[in-house]
C-alpha cells in the first residue's frame, strides 16, 4: 500500500528549538503516512523555497516574530493560493494580545501555541492532526 506523503515545515530562527522539533517529528510514526520534514530560518526563505507549491497536505509550524516576513504575513500569502486548504498552519509566539490572536485566526492560522509549551502534548496534537488530515485524502 502506498504511503501518503505529508509535508511538515518548521519556520523558526532558534536553531536548537528547530533541531528539537525535527527530532520530535522524526519520532512521529503513523502507518501509511510519510512525513517530509523541512526547516527554514525565516518566512522569506520559506516562501522562496517554493516548498508550499507542493500538492501534499502540509503542516507549517511558524514563529510569528521572524526577522523577514512574520508568521501572519506568510499565512496571508499562503491562504491566497489555490487549494489553500492543504495547509494547516500553527503559529508560535512568546506573547500576543487577544486581539492579535483573533487577527491571526482571521488571517488564516489554524492553531496558536504560546511559548513555552509542552513538547509531549504538542507531539500528541501533531499526531492526531496528521491522522485526521490524512483521513480526508
Amino acid at each position: 500500500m502506498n504511503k501518503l506523503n505529508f509535508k511538515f515545515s518548521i519556520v523558526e530562527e532558534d536553531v536548537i528549538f528547530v533541531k528539537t522539533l525535527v527530532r520530535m517529528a522524526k519520532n512521529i510514526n503513523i502507518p501509511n503516512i510519510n512525513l517530509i520534514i523541512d526547516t527554514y530560518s525565516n518566512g522569506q526563505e520559506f516562501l522562496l523555497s517554493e516548498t508550499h507549491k507542493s500538492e501534499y497536505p502540509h503542516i507549517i509550524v511558524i514563529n510569528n516574530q521572524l526577522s523577514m516576513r512574520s508568521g501572519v504575513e506568510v499565512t496571508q500569502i499562503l491562504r491566497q493560493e489555490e487549494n489553500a486548504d492543504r495547509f494547516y498552519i500553527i503559529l508560535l509566539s512568546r506573547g500576543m494580545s487577544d486581539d492579535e490572536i483573533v487577527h491571526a485566526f482571521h488571517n488564516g492560522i489554524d492553531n496558536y501555541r504560546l511559548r513555552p509549551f509542552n513538547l509531549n502534548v504538542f507531539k500528541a496534537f501533531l499526531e492526531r492532526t496528521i491522522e485526521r488530515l490524512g483521513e480526508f485524502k
Partner: protein
Amino acid sequence: MTLIFQLFILIIIISSLVIISFFIYFGIRYYQTRQSKVQIKQYINRTDDLWFDYLVNQSSFNNEQLWNNSNEFKAIEEILFSYTNNFSDECIHNQISQFANSLLTEKYRKQLKSRDKNVRINTLYRVHLFNISALSEDIQEMMRKPKSDTEHFQLLLIYAKILPENFYDEFEKVQLNLSEFQFKILFAVIPKEIHMKVLDSFESLSVEGQYAFIDVLGKSLDYADAEYLLKLLDSHEIEIRIRSLKALSEGGIILDEEKVLPFIDSEVWEERLMVAKIFSKVEAEELVYKKLIEDSNWWVRNEVAQGLSLTRNGRVILEEIMRSSKDQYAVDASRKYLLKGEVIS
C-alpha cells in the same frame, strides 16, 4: 626645516603604527568571534541528539556532552536556554536543574564572586532559570550584602524559587525600594503559600506593591482572590477600588453582584467603566445595561455597547434600547455596534 620634516615623518610613522595596531586588534577580535561561533555551532551539531535524549527521553548523561573549552560551555548554556524558554515540560526542567546542580555549580560559584557586576547579574539570572538550589548558601551570603538594587531584586527572584521559606522576610525588608513593575514580576512567580502570606499582609505593602498585587490577581483569579477583591471595594482609596474592579473584570469571577452594582452610580467614571467591563463578561439584568448605556461618559457607553453586541441576547437588548431609549447617545452607541459587531456566543 629639517627638524620640522623629521617631526612630520615621526608623526606619520606613529599614526601608521596606531592604525596598523587597530587593524590587527580588530582582526584578531573578528577571528576570535568567528572561531567562537564555529565552535558553538560544531558543539550543537555534534551533541543535539544526546541533549534531546537526556532532556526529553530522560536518558543518562553522556560524557560526550561535557565541554572542552569556554565556547562549548557557552553552547551548553544556549541549549539549556532554548529548552527552558521554549518548553514547559516538567521533566525537561527537572533534568536541566539536575544537570546544572551537579555540573555548573562550581563555575557559577566563581562567577558569583566576580568583581564584574554584569558577570554576577548574568550568573544570578542563570541560577534562577536553571533552578540551582546547590548554590543556596552562596545566594544567602550575597543577600546579606547585595551590591546593587538590580542584584538585590534578582536575589529575591531566586529566593522565591529555591528558598521560598525565607522569601517573605527578605521581601519585607526591601519592598519599599521596589517599583510597581518589579512587584508585578515577583508576584507573578511566587508560589501559592507566599501568595497567601502577601494577601494576609496586604495592608503593610507599599502603595506600588498593593497596586501590583491587585493587577496580578486579575491575571489568574481564583475564588479566594475574587472574595478578597470584593472586600477591597470598600477601600477609601479610589485607585484601589478601580484596580480591584478591573481585576474582577479580567478574572470574570463575581461572587456577589450586590457589591459591584452600586458602582454604576459612582462619581468616578473609571469605576463605572470597570463595571461596564465586568457586565460585558458576566450577565446582568437588562436594567443594568440600560443604565450603563445611558451613562454620561463616552467610554462607558462604548464599552457596554461593544460587550452587548457580541452576544445574541446582548444584541436583543441593544435593539430594544435603539427602539425605546430617549437618550440619543445611547441610541447612537447601540446602532454603531449593532452594525459592526460580530456575535461570538
